[in-house]
């Protein structure tokens, strides 16, 4: 398993890993369904212990299957979507015959929107959610900062205003476009 240098994208190091990644790429974020768990960057690592390797021991006469180990990190500590994503990953793998899936949560390094894939950012915009900007000065606790210019995902105007730092889910802020008047979500920097 290799991690892309800039984004959080992970690249399969073997055919077995590639197959697993293809399955995970079909598992959506329940709150932003255009994004897969891979686009979101919550899957940090996978490894496949293939059948026949000494680690996958047959128990009770059942045929051994590959053991999949998935390391993940939550977006926000309280994000209720994380448990759903884990269940959906498990189901998607089960449907393809992978019965032996282990999850491990890691908290550090903490998830950042920088790990969202470029493809994911484009899908977000097409879906009507302004994608996160690269990490910038706004991630500080200072009050009434100069707001960053967020582009309206509908008319592309930068003439937009912040309505609330806290939107419909933990990961989003609420904006409104001053030109086309549409309210929209911004996947805020984290």
């Amino acid at each position: 398993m290799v991690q892309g240098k800039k984004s959080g994208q992970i690249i399969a190091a073997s055919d077995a890993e590639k197959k697993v990644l293809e399955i995970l790429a079909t598992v959506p974020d329940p709150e932003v369904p255009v994004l897969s768990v891979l686009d979101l960057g919550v899957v940090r690592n996978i490894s496949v212990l293939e059948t026949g390797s000494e680690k996958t021991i047959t128990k009770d006469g059942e045929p051994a299957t590959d053991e999949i180990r998935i390391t993940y990190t939550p977006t926000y500590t309280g994000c209720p979507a994380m448990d759903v994503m884990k269940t959906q990953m498990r189901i998607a793998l089960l449907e393809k015959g992978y019965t032996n899936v282990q999850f491990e949560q890691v908290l550090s390094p903490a998830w950042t929107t920088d790990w969202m894939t470029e493809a994911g950012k484009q899908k977000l915009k097409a879906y009507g959610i302004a994608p996160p900007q690269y990490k910038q000065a706004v991630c500080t606790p200072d009050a009434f900062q100069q707001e960053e210019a967020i582009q309206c995902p509908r008319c592309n105007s930068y003439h937009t205003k912040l309505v609330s730092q806290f939107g419909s889910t933990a990961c989003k802020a609420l904006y409104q476009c001053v030109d086309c008047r549409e309210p929209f979500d911004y996947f805020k920097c984290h």
Partner: protein
Amino acid sequence: MTKQYLIDYTLQLADNALILAQRNSEWCGHGPVLEQDIAISNISLDLIGQARNFYQYAATLIGGNATEDSLAYLRDAIDFKNNLISEILNGDWAQTVLRQFLVSTYQFYLYDALQKSPDQQLAAIAEKALKEVTYHVRWSSEWVIRLGDGTSESKQRIEKALEEIWPYTGELFIPVQHETDAVTAGIGVDPKMIEENWKQKVSTVFSEATLTLPPQNIWMHTGGKNGIHTEYLGYILAEMQFMQRAYPSAEW
């Protein structure tokens, strides 16, 4: 064998987050406007997430049958180690946002220091929580300024809130035994070390809000960290723990 002070220290971090989350969640559906109702509920959610991480860690330290749920739902008031400021009443919006600002600012400096702890789990949780608390500080300080430097009505409300809450701030910086032990072991954060930063930030925001910083040498409420609480905590737990007490081990 795990040191008791580390368990108590971790529980204190968890309890502070959980009890304030439970308090703030009372605003859900009652916020002054929809966007702010959503904001305070989001802050609750972040705090619950932080509490879960600390409880999960405490459960592994305690071992046996302890789980994050048993720690949240099956301990009594005397076992809770949260600061009293987390459990006092929400009051009006002014009191809620002022309390949030004072606590978030405390958490900000606490987590900032704790992310350098040699205890890797505490450090990892703090690193993650700090990102969320950064937004909480920003949001709540803007509200303090907006109300303090607002109308005569809003000014009068937040001044009244300050009078109510201030005597609960001293406790944040008075270490109890398990904190001192955690500091001595090099794992915990000395509350005295973050007090100066906290005062600095509070006085900066207060001056923008045209509020007067109350004297620090007044009598302060203490006891929460040692399990001696106001009567309010019992009511919070009665509501929060009802389901697990009435239907032990219920899951869904």
